[in-house]
């Protein structure tokens, strides 16, 4: 295995473009090192991106959104004094990845590019409408988060391409987001189901919503029907019931060691309701319940 520590994205891309075999980028390392230890995959080329300028920064965009460096850890996001006020759901979702120890290392980009259907950060990122900047030998493009994973362990990134930046949209007025996952224990498990919801209200009425589900399909699923079920409502019981039904209907999960099809389908609806209540409370300025 060749190990590189480039100091610029250009260098990193050049190394990746020239490398033979399997190339991986090391941001947090909490997936790559596990794969190496478990003999699932040892890359031929490993590019440590932590030495690149700016990858540890969290900055406001001129539009009022946020730019997050690709090597910013979950713990650093949680500790940031303002980020969590705008996007509590995104921060909480990232904060659910692994243990305190893993929190000190794991990154949103790593969680995204590992392309696990059960990644915790991704449903929240999708719900929030986050985009990433993808750079490669042929230039740079801006891609919605939901378009990055294409299947378990697979992404839409071409060979030599890497994510260089994460952009969170401006929070704007009267918005709120939330992420919840179901795990059998209280910590340390992979999500059996995850649900991220981001919405905006006008008074008591929901005007915009995005609902994303994790671990219920080969990739994280943005469920328009679930969003439609609550848009125009005050999140009353009927809306919540419709939300749960739409969320469950959007599931096409598998039976595996972590959960059954039936269980995942049912719990997706339960979590959607619970996450919606939290996001709604945040958007309407109520205290978190």
């Amino acid at each position, binding site marked *: *295995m*060749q*190990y590189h*520590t480039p100091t610029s994205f250009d260098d990193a891309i050049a190394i990746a473009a020239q490398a033979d075999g399997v190339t991986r980028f*090391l941001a947090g*390392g*909490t997936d790559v*090192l*596990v794969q*190496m*230890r*478990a003999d699932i995959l*040892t890359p031929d080329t*490993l590019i*440590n991106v*932590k030495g690149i300028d700016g990858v540890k920064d969290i900055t406001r965009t001129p539009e009022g959104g946020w730019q997050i460096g690709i090597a910013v*850890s979950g*713990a650093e996001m949680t500790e940031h004094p303002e980020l969590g006020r705008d996007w509590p759901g995104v921060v909480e979702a990232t904060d659910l990845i*692994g*243990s*305190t*120890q*893993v929190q*000190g*290392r794991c990154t949103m980009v790593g969680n995204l590019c590992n392309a696990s259907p059960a990644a915790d950060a991704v449903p929240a990122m999708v719900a929030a409408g986050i985009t990433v900047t993808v750079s490669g030998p042929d230039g740079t493009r801006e891609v919605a988060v939901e378009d990055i994973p294409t299947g378990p362990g697979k992404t839409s990134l071409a060979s030599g391409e890497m994510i260089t930046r994460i952009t969170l949209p401006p929070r704007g007025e009267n918005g709120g987001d939330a992420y919840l996952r179901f795990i059998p224990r*209280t*910590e*340390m498990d992979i999500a059996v189901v995850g649900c991220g919801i981001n919405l905006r209200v006008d008074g008591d009425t929901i005007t915009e919503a995005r609902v994303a589900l994790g671990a219920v399909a080969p990739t994280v699923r943005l469920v328009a029907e679930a969003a439609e079920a609550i848009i125009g409502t005050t999140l009353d019981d009927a809306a919540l019931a419709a939300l749960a039904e739409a969320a469950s209907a959007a599931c096409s999960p598998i039976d595996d060691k972590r959960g059954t099809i039936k269980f995942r389908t049912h719990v997706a609806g339960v979590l959607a309701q619970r996450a919606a209540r939290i996001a709604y409370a945040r958007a309407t300025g109520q205290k978190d319940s």
Partner: protein
Amino acid sequence: MSKIHVTTTINGDEVEYLCDPRETMLDVLRDRLGLTGAKEGCGTGDCGACSVTLDGRLVCSCLMLGAEADGHEITTIEGMATGEELHPLQQKFIEYAALQCGICTPGILVATKALLEKNPDPTETEVRYWLAGNLCRCTGYDKIIRAVMDTAADMREAS
């Protein structure tokens, strides 16, 4: 396969070593530097027995490459006591029998020290969630949590 030359600081001392790029920090600590206080319980970040701090932040040394330590500061359980004076957490763990077999103890001590530096007055729930990545199979955690809570109280009183 060529080895990588690393210059780093471990428990306050400058250390140099050569390592294979595939070696983890845990491998380096244990097999190259003789610092066997960090344990390998799983090798995949699930048990916390290999906990160390990297530039003051709690990490699993099994989820970090040895090569990554270059230019950074690592602290291990071996750096916790000052001379013959134990850290208050170490002392309390002995007094409370907060360990049975002792294999998870170094990792738990490193982790709780990092917690108390960040949050000197944690609730029981905060301690439990902070330590969720440090598996202990002997104690049921009861005496560990009590030791941490009482050490925190003592340290707040002393400061």
